[in-house]
Structure formats: structure tokens, C-alpha cells
């Protein structure tokens, strides 16, 4: 079993839709949860991070963590064609010296 599971998609939605991206994990030691966005032929860029259960909002993006279920989500409101990218969830534990475990990524396409 992988430490982090993520549906690879692809996911295609119309512009303006709400997008929900999800990951599950198995390691209860994970305390830091991140979402990266990766455009084609680019390196990943950090989008959101959180240290605790609950919601964190940043503009059109909301990151949600449920540690009891070992489940994290990223919601994108009012999706735009520029949001088309691969989204990778990532997580780490405090003892890992910054080592991050990534999900496999979900390819998202926003149709104009």
C-alpha cells in the first residue's frame, strides 16, 4: 500500500465549476499537508500548506484536512482555464528532516 493515494484523473470540468481534489494517507505521523500545482514542463510550485485538521482558505482555494480519516482535500472555487495543471498532494512528518511524500498527482483541465 502506498503511503499517499491520489486519483490520477484526468479530471475535466467547465469553467466556473467547483473542483474537489482528494488524497488519502496511511501514516498517522504525517503532520504537514501541502498541495502543489505543476504546469506542463515546469517544476511543482507550492499552492497551500497546513499543519492541522480543519480548513484553510486562500482566495479561490480551500485546503481541508481530516486527520481522523487520514483524508485531505483541495477545493477550487470559480475554476479558471489557468487552473488547468496537475495537482499533487504532499505530506511529511516532523521527524523527517523536510522529506516530503507526494501523491501521484491529479491532472485537471478546465474547459472554457
Amino acid at each position, binding site marked *: 500500500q502506498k503511503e499517499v493515494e*491520489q486519483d*490520477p484523473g484526468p479530471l475535466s470540468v467547465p469553467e466556473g465549476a467547483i473542483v474537489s481534489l482528494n488524497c488519502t494517507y496511511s501514516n498517522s505521523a504525517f503532520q*504537514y499537508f*501541502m498541495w502543489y500545482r505543476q504546469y506542463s*514542463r*515546469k*517544476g*511543482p*510550485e*507550492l499552492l497551500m*500548506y497546513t499543519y492541522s485538521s480543519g480548513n484553510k482558505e486562500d482566495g479561490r482555494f480551500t485546503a481541508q484536512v481530516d486527520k481522523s480519516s487520514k483524508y485531505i482535500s483541495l477545493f477550487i472555487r470559480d475554476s479558471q482555464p489557468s487552473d488547468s495543471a496537475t495537482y*499533487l498532494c504532499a505530506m*511529511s512528518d*516532523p521527524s523527517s*528532516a*523536510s*522529506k*516530503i511524500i*507526494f*501523491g*501521484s*498527482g491529479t491532472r485537471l483541465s478546465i474547459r472554457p
Partner: protein
Amino acid sequence: SAVISQKPSRDICQRGTSLTIQCQVDSQVTMMFWYRQQPGQSLTLIATANQGSEATYESGFVIDKFPISRPNLTFSTLTVSNMSPEDSSIYLCSGGLAGVQETQYFGPGTRLLVL
């Protein structure tokens, strides 16, 4: 945020040869990492590059195949040795501050094709 550059951006190599990838960060990061990203797959950590000492390799990766150097805080190299077509992948370096996961920034990657 740190700006991380890599070169070459891409290369096509013959089986049995070696390629060295360079990574430069523009600020004083404490941690540097090398990842591999195979087509359609996630990032897999190869090793942590340690300044002035041997890199710390993850399970499945060995120094003879992926020698890494980090002569100073802001520069590191990864060599892919004795390449085979299975080494075709994107290789990414990242840098950040120890214990501060949200500061880990990635370079644009090096696309390697081995024939």
C-alpha cells in the same frame, strides 16, 4: 521565495553514458534534494544532498548510480551513471529550510531521454 535553476533543461543520451545535472539556488537554503518524476507519476525522492559530505540516499537509490555533490550551500550536482532507457525521466532538484516544509521550492526539472 527561492529561485532554483537547473541545467541542462533536457538531454538525449546514449545507453551506457553518464549525464551530470547542475542545480543552483539563489538564496541560502539549508536543505537540497533530488527527485525523479517518471512520466505520469509522482515525485520520488532520490537523495538529500548534504553540504561537504556524502548524500543521504533513499531506499532503491545508490551512490554508484546517482553520485551527488554539494560543494557549497547553493549548488549541487546529480550524475546519472551508466544510463539505460529505464533512467528516462524528469529529474528535479529542490531547496528549502530544514524543518520548514512549506519553504521547499523546486527547479524546472531536467528531461532526460536515454536511447
